[in-house]
């Protein structure tokens, strides 16, 4: 089939950027969206034109690298799917497809569809871990964990950190991401030790990076390729409330207030 792509082209961080029309001929319905772009790029290279730059890695929906807003929807209109898992059979011959990068102040565009998402890494570095001495692997089930909690933690841990929540949010808020990363630990005994410190530090970093804040539009949940529910943000808010309480009333307030 034949498609007309309207692709965001931007030479560098400082370039203004613009939508360019690129015709894609010979698109097979068996291709994934990224394979379609590969074919278009080969064509561009053959013509001596700079290919469309986009992020990708695993191409099996687990790494969270692929990132584009397709016809106004982050990762495209197929629910619970990353761009790499989106297939061309969901498009029709003659379609016009708008392809734009994630847009947020905290995600500067580097080139075309490639944005710098290291703000998310810095949020992880602020508290998205547990402090343990590494050593021999602990015995399985040494720490009993209720099935319910294990399930909830796993649901949160499904987040691949792609940043679609930020891209879709009218406020460019990263709260669904942070909520998932806070909750995956907060449901487990290993994570509870540092829970207050963690949520406090991660939220502070999130704010410092210039992300917006949640006003409950639920656009994030609608595009999340791992279908993480926006109610996860309520869990983060509970954790944060706990941290505030501990900080104001708890004995250990001093030990980590400036963490």
């Amino acid at each position, binding site marked *: 089939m034949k498609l007309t792509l309207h692709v965001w082209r931007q030479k560098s961080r400082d370039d203004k950027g613009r*939508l360019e029309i690129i015709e894609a001929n010979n698109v097979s319905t068996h291709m994934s969206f990224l394979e379609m772009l590969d074919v278009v790029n080969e064509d561009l290279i053959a013509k001596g034109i700079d290919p469309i730059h986009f992020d990708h890695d695993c191409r099996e929906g687990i790494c969270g690298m692929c990132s584009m807003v397709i016809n106004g929807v982050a990762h495209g209109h197929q629910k619970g799917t990353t761009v790499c898992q989106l297939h061309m059979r969901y498009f029709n011959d003659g379609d016009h497809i708008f392809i734009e990068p994630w847009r947020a102040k905290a995600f500067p565009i580097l080139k075309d569809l490639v944005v710098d998402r290291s703000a998310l890494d810095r949020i992880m570095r602020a508290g998205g871990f547990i402090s343990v001495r590494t050593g021999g692997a602990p015995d399985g089930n040494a720490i009993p964990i209720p099935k319910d909690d294990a399930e909830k933690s796993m649901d949160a841990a499904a987040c691949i950190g792609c940043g679609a929540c930020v891209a879709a949010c009218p406020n460019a808020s990263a709260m669904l991401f942070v909520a998932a990363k806070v909750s995956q630990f907060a449901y487990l005994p290993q994570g509870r030790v540092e829970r207050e410190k963690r949520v406090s530090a991660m939220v502070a970093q999130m704010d410092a990076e210039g992300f917006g804040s949640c*006003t409950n*539009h639920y*656009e994030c*949940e609608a595009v999340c390729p791992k279908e993480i529910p926006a109610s996860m943000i309520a*869990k983060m808010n509970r954790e944060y409330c706990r941290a505030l309480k501990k900080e104001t009333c708890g004995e250990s307030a001093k030990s980590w207030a400036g963490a």
Partner: protein
Amino acid sequence: MNNTAVARARSFPLVLVTSSIAKKFVMALTGFVAFGYVVGHMIGNLQIFIGQNQINAYAKALHSMGPLLWLVRGFLIVCIVLHIWLGAQLRIENWVARPDGYARKKSLKTGLPARTMIWTGALIFAFVIYHILQFTVRSTDPRFEELFDTLGRHDVYSMVILGFQNIWISGFYIVAVGLLCFHLSHGIWSMFQSLGWNNKRSERWLQGFAWIFASVMFLGYISIPIAVLGGFLKLPGGVAL
């Protein structure tokens, strides 16, 4: 942000006005207070249907609370100021967070109430100012100061009827209350989410509850101007203007 900078968590009480989530807590709590007031105010107003004596006695009872009345008013004013201040601040931060928009953007879940909170809020504020000038300060209509019932109380009953007999004033009131309930249709469930009192199961119920509650409040409030315009609530004999 450069690659190594790590933000420091702020401590109480500064965190309440600097952290995004703490600000949302304050929004929700002040919103809840305003919501509580709006519900109470509607129930108070509906006493007009019981009769002139009831509503005038109610108004008199409120005014005889003296310093307590001002304590309550002061608390409400502080809450509204915080609500507006933080609401505006969050809104501006959220605009700044997305400096360049998309050429194409589809909304999948959000609705008009959620997207217009700051505008419905601002219009509600403008209305509240007018409403206070009209019925509390009574500076919009010279007749309102002169109304007394047979017991010598200020005649709130006749004042409301006189006010709403003007179709423009009634119309403006109905639109304003509509905007308030629009704000609340998102706000009522939003505050639960903001305070963390929500999960996947409660969500549908909270959203349904918010819509129903906002609709009931809309009907409750507009029943008064409609009853006046429809001639169901009439001026008592003796009030001839």
